[in-house]
């Protein structure tokens, strides 16, 4: 048995994380304090020494579990929390069949949601975190779960992983007391974990109806571009980790999003203009 265990439920998915070291599971318990503790998990993650002797000497954390990549690179023990988070993401990406899974962030207002998806580093996490400080409910920054029967979104409010300067943006928003862990020199740069606000956690079982799709991109001058259905379809299939394995139900759920929702690509130079753009498009377009 693993020496250290953390159990947590995020939205509809329950995890069991076992670790050979105390650090990663302690960090998880602190980051996810107040989340429901499940009795039977949907997925198991194991953080183990890459080789047996590496529990003690130059500890190297291998990410294993119900589903695993054979060639996945191990992380240093200092990045144990990242390993736990990556382990949970991996189970979702490789194992989840109940929902169409989109690599995207989402926020909600009045029961309706904006789905934001784009390449890694496009700013979808930061934008979702920013909007959740300005009147929106945070649904998730990593995965959007689309119910295959109803088409509703199930919130999956995991801790937000903020890259590099994004942590300073959130501190300026007054969310500093929820910035709990900062990991330097990870393969993705510096990662700071932001705990979602209390409303996002308390309402994690409240679904939302998708109303708008945005493809945000941070860095350029402010711009809005209409995205046609063919491009939306291709970009959503690329953003989905289980579209192919789901077969027909996945196709139906994904094409319903393409058919029913307006979609725009937005460029923005900073957070304020991004929020202003989202508000404007929401007022004009949201179904």
């Amino acid at each position: 048995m693993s020496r250290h265990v953390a159990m947590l439920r995020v939205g509809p998915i329950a995890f069991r994380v076992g670790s050979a070291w105390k650090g990663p599971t302690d960090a998880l318990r602190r980051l996810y304090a107040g989340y429901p503790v499940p009795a039977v998990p949907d997925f198991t993650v194991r953080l183990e020494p890459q080789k047996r002797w590496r529990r003690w000497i130059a500890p190297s954390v291998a990410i294993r579990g119900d589903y695993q990549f054979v060639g996945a690179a191990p992380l240093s023990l200092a990045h144990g929390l990242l390993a736990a988070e990556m382990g949970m993401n991996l189970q979702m990406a490789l194992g989840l069949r109940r929902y169409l899974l989109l690599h995207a962030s989402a926020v909600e207002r009045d029961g309706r949601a904006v789905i934001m998806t784009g390449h890694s580093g496009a700013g979808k996490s930061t934008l979702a975190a920013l909007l959740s400080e300005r009147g929106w409910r945070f649904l998730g920054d990593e995965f959007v779960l689309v119910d295959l029967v109803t088409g509703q979104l199930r919130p999956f409010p995991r801790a937000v992983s903020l890259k590099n300067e994004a942590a300073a943006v959130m501190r300026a928003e007054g969310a500093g007391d929820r910035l709990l862990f900062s990991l330097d020199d990870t393969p993705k740069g510096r990662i700071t974990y932001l705990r979602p606000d209390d409303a996002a956690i308390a309402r994690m079982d409240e679904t939302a109806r998708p109303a708008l799709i945005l493809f945000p991109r941070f860095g350029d001058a402010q711009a809005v571009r209409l995205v046609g259905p063919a491009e939306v379809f291709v970009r959503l299939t690329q953003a989905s980790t289980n579209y192919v394995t789901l077969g027909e139900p996945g196709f139906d759920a994904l094409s319903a999003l393409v058919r029913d929702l307006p979609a725009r690509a937005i460029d923005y130079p900073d957070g304020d203009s991004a929020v202003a753009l989202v508000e404007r498009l929401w007022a004009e377009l949201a179904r």
Partner: protein
Amino acid sequence: MTSATILVRALRDPASATALDAAGWTALLTVARAESLIGTLAHRLADIPLPPAVSPTLADARASAETVGRQALWEAEMARRALAPLGVPVILLKGTAFAAAGLDPSIGRSIGDLDILVPREAIDQVESALKAAGWEWVKDDAYDDAYYRRWMHELPPLIHKDRDRMIDVHHTILPMTARQTPDAGALVSASIALPDGLRILAPADMIVHAACHLFADGDLAGGLRNLWDVDRLLRQFGNDPGFWSTLAERAALHEMERSVHLAMRLSAHLYGTPILQGAPRLTLFERLIVRRIQARDGWGRAPHPFTRLGFYIRSHWLRMPPTMLARHLWTKLRKR
């Protein structure tokens, strides 16, 4: 009770699962996943009351197995189209064969690569036809490639460049270096045609192949699933007139009597296959095998490295003469 025995008991007697607590369910689901038996388990438990935390996972597993079965049959159809012009018999093996013929082991079963058997004299034609249809070599290592071609019972694995699916093309069911020599020609000539022209092994030969796969080839990994196949096949065919005598004849013909006998005894011990009077009393060696096959803890780990290593060496020992084994292990060691 170890975690793997919870799985064996739930497969054998689904009602036993109703007595599990949360920790028991957690172990059951984790081990079932690790042994690629979660879909099978999900179907076995379909009619018993399940805790709310468990039923979505098992529903997922059933849906997933259905997709896997459909994809496997599609892959078989792709191979059929590529090979049909050659006019050689193409025999599906293992999971895809069970699914194509609708046999009992296919219910909820996971299926990995597509395994086919073709006559040895047709192997070059088959290789060219598959390559022309988009399959490519996985291994670009000259030693491995030469080893496969000279000594193995199959071509080096091929993968399809668009669909990313693997095919193993066998010309017999044991490596050429093994002590036993199954009669590959007899496997082909006794095979049975399916409506679409693809073929499956005759029932008794399926049991022989499962036994080969479990004991003479490999380090017993996946043994629980393999023996579940054996159990389901024996239950399905056991009442056919003449089945048991045919099985004895075919096992003798393929020089696999010991392995078939062992597979039957272990399947009776684990899953209660109705083949003998009462449960068999296992020998020490058989108990060791049962221990190895069930060496899986509640976190999905296989925890007896010593037992595992022993069986790994044994599996190679069975496959190769000693001097060849030494040369093989030396080559592999230098490449690490």
